[in-house]
């Protein structure tokens, strides 16, 4: 797991010894989605947007069991990466994540956002207890589910549970790779979301282009 901080803006955040937040804590934006769905691409777009607004953010990327390609990339792009508890396979993801978020809350007092990209193999459900143990309420976790429509069949058949859990926790869904699928696949993707959570906001976009204005406003 690695943490990555940048930005210049100083905000206010204070924690007491019991880690109860005395003032606003930085929102956690969680980018969920299966392997290769587009989480890193989405995260990079979000960084661009937030840094343009002069926000100070920390990025947590978890690529457990893999060599950290995404965080290496971030580092090469000039973001300051602090390897904290990376590669700790003997410690559970839950404990590691909790310690990482707490470390951020305690030691980086001027953070505006925490952006978190978990491994594409993680069920987001398993990540919530750790974040909530740091004082966040479920509704405070801005979970953006990146729904890669090229994986529709996979989600329908083998990963039904993962899909259900992901949609149930998401604050919004980004259906991306519009340039790689046809209209009926996009419609199927939208229906799949609506069947589980009618009314959940979905954004359709090609992440290789700029973030849609609507999503821009949402974030």
């Amino acid at each position, binding site marked *: 797991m690695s943490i990555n901080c940048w930005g210049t803006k100083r905000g206010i955040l204070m924690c007491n010894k019991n880690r109860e937040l005395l003032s606003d804590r930085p929102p956690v934006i969680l980018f969920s989605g299966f392997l290769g769905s587009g989480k890193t691409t989405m995260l990079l777009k979000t960084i661009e947007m937030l840094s343009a607004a002069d926000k100070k953010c920390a990025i947590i990327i978890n690529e457990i*069991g893999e060599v950290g390609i995404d965080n290496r990339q971030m580092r090469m792009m000039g973001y300051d990466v602090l390897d904290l508890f990376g590669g700790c396979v003997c410690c559970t993801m839950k404990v590691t994540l909790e310690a990482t978020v707490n470390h951020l809350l305690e030691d980086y007092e001027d953070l505006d956002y925490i952006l978190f990209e978990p491994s594409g193999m993680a069920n987001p459900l398993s990540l919530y207890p750790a974040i909530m143990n740091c004082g966040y309420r479920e509704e405070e976790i801005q979970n953006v589910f990146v729904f890669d429509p090229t994986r529709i069949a996979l989600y329908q058949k083998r990963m039904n549970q993962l899909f259900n859990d992901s949609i149930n926790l998401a604050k919004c869904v980004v259906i991306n790779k519009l340039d790689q699928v046809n209209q009926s696949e996009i419609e199927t993707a939208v229906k799949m979301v609506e069947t589980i959570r009618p009314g959940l906001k979905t954004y359709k976009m090609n992440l290789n282009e700029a973030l849609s204005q609507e999503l821009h406003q949402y974030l």
Partner: protein
Amino acid sequence: MYQEEFLPVVFNIRFSSNQALPVEKWRSRIQDVLHLYVNQICKDDNRMIGHIKALAQIDEKDFIKFSCVGNSNAINSNFHGNHQDLFDINVIINSLVSNISEKESHVFLERSCQTMIKRDSEIKIQINAKHDRQSNHHHHGDGNDCPICHGHHH
């Protein structure tokens, strides 16, 4: 569950040449190797590509990132930096594929590199020992104990 089906395999390979070659040429050769690798993986319908990603490091800042998602064999690449000529380039590959052993993945990659060398005699490819990222290794920064388990592995 599906998580266990995807075995992460990491490769560290070095492409080199006796003369400096443009980044675009390296990009195309690396892409060819990845194509050859993915083709072999896709021969068995039981295998599924979770994500095969690779990072070619040009210098401290410049890189090419490659990505293959699903079995369509399309390999996406993004170049970040300035164009320049290079004698060699280091590539880390992170391959997450289901129903394949680490050994098979190695055989496929070696074969792909050999095919590439035969096609383009200008290029040498060396597969290095993989990163020591897995198993019991901890990386907590300069000799620090793991703040979670304090060195006591479970």
